[in-house]
């Protein structure tokens, strides 16, 4: 055996590629904590950018491999599933990884333009946040999903406070409290599922949930609905969305832009748990959330767009747009068909990129408006009206869904997928109305920002334009969004295949648990005669 060092490394890389999206940010963050950030910020920025760019390449590689129908299963500690934790990378996971890294790279580039010096350990926390996000997207185990939720949440608690100030602490307390309560509910849901099904491996769950019937199925349904509440808090569904607008509006611009992907963790979990495990084939607990998901999602979308029209500041307006877009995505998930899921995935990728770009863009605009800052009122003229105005127009048109931008394609796919569904009228009405009102709100904002100029004695408020770095970061996010229109064909084929793959239980069972039909052992048979000492 004469293997060169490069061969060995290559083999190791192939073998452990699935876990690298989690390990890379984790090690980067630890390295950064060792270096410290007192007087080595330029070095930290370089390390962070290289790490995130590498992460993007790994994610793209995984997506390309996932696209030829291979399910990459990584057994952590080499314990066989369902006993050990497995990471499973299918098309959906790979897509989410690419999306996370594609948002993170420009946002990090933007933050390196100055925001990261407003507080300590920004870069390390950013990496921990990425670790949590990537982990949540690759794990194949429900309890492990909870752990990665906590990792990303703890990082987000501190990132939200980045830059500090009274308003950030005020929303910080509320944000942490609501998420801790949601975490408690998550654990209750997981415990109920374990009590009735006896496993937490997602593939094993998909295989065993249909076998549960009778009283146990009622408990299981309750668990599914509790988990819907948990993921609903993360994704900001109708009654649980109230925390989001003030939180995202108070966060610093790059943090808010990164948080655009956090709501999608909730959406992803709903698809994995309620779409697949409690999907159409789940026996007595099939489609538990169907009566709830679609009406709530449409309501979220409609209510959020009115919130957007009523917003007085720019970040708050974009925050409401986040909620509105989540509503549209979840409405498509709630249709429970492969075509609709594919539409949801495409629209989710697009809306995440555009909303992240908008959070950055409104800060660029606000910085040039002197004392009017981010308030929606007449103010001093911006220094770069052509550039910023054009970017705003592109982002607004795409968010509202005007052709030929990807927002239009995404919404069209959602509308097409809903045809024939009994709620078709509702979906069409809400999606089209939300699109129109979004356009109205953004047109109003644009005309106030760029045309409603208050003449200042002695020239415009702030003469300095935005630095090329900040503009480049924003442009690349909007560019990535627009690129989705050019690549709509291949992307749609990918999301179509991802949606089809999700419902193919056999493939998952073969890949994760071994041969099809192999019964997984359940050594602890319930119910046993419990406390014998009770008599």
């Amino acid at each position: 055996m004469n293997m060169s060092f490069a061969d060995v490394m290559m083999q190791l890389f192939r073998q452990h590629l699935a876990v690298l999206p989690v390990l890379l940010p984790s090690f980067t963050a630890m390295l950064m904590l060792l270096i410290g950030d007192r007087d080595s910020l330029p070095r930290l920025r370089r390390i962070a950018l290289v790490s995130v760019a590498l992460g993007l390449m790994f994610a793209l590689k995984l997506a390309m491999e996932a696209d030829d129908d291979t399910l990459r299963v990584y057994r952590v500690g080499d314990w066989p599933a369902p006993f050990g934790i497995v990471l499973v990378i299918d098309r959906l996971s790979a897509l989410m990884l690419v999306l996370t890294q594609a948002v993170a790279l420009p946002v990090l580039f933007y933050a390196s333009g100055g925001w990261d010096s407003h507080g300590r350990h920004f870069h390390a926390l950013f990496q921990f946040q990425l670790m949590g996000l990537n982990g949540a997207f690759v794990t194949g185990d429900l309890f492990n999903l909870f752990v990665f939720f906590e990792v990303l949440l703890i990082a987000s608690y501190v990132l939200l406070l980045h830059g500090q100030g009274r308003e950030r602490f005020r929303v910080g307390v509320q944000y942490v409290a609501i998420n801790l309560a949601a975490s408690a509910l998550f654990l209750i849901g997981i415990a109920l599922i374990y009590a009735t099904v006896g496993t937490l491996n997602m593939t094993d769950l998909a295989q065993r949930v249909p076998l549960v019937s009778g009283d146990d199925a009622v408990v299981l349904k309750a668990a599914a609905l509790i988990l819907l509440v948990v993921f609903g808090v993360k994704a900001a569904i109708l009654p649980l969305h109230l925390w989001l607008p003030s939180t995202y509006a108070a966060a610093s611009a790059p943090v808010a832009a990164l948080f655009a992907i956090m709501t999608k963790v909730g959406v992803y979990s709903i698809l994995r748990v309620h779409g697949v495990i409690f999907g159409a084939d789940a026996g007595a607990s099939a489609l538990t959330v169907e009566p709830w998901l679609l009406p709530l999602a449409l309501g979220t979308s409609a209510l959020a767009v009115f919130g957007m029209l009523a917003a007085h500041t720019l970040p708050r307006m974009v925050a409401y747009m986040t909620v509105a877009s989540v509503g549209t995505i979840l409405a498509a998930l709630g249709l429970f068909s492969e075509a609709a899921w594919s539409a949801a995935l495409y629209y989710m990728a697009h809306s995440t990129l555009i909303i992240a770009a908008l959070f950055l863009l409104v800060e660029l605009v606000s910085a040039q408006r002197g004392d009017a800052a981010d308030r929606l009122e007449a103010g001093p003229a911006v220094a770069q009206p052509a550039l910023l105005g054009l970017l705003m127009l592109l982002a607004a048109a795409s968010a509202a869904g005007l052709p030929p931008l990807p927002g239009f394609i995404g919404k069209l796919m959602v509308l097409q997928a809903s045809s024939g569904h009994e709620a078709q009228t509702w979906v069409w009405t809400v999606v089209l109305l939300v699109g129109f009102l979004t356009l109205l709100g953004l047109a109003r904002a644009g005309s106030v920002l760029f045309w409603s100029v208050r003449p200042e004695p002695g020239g415009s408020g702030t003469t300095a334009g935005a630095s090329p770095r900040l503009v480049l970061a924003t442009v690349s996010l909007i560019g990535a969004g627009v690129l989705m229109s050019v690549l709509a064909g291949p992307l749609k084929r990918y999301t179509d295949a991802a949606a089809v793959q999700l419902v193919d239980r056999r493939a998952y069972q073969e890949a994760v648990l071994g041969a099809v039909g192999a019964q997984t052992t359940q050594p602890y048979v319930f119910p046993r005669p419990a406390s014998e000492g009770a008599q």
Partner: protein
Amino acid sequence: MSLFANISMEFLVATGIGWVTACGVYLMLRGRSFPVVLGLTLLGYAVNIFIFVMGRLWSAAPPILGQGAVQADPLPQALVLTAIVIGFATTGFVIELALRSRAESGTDHVDGREPRA
């Protein structure tokens, strides 16, 4: 025979968890940050015991195969350890955050300002 002789352990544990949860939820809905933190902690305790008993209640059963006729389920015990560690860390963080918020805004109300009388 006393009145309580026929009450099962399951009933006692379930009622206990319910009571602690109720107290936690009540405290969490208070307006000051200290009761809210206490409420979150209580809810955490209730949830931890809830996970623990999801493996069912056993007496004299070790969670190791081959050590006796019956085995307790070890998985909930492992899960609850993870949950305890995470809960401990987040509680520490939320206390520090509440203190900083108190210092920044001058009030311990969760809205960051005193409610108007």
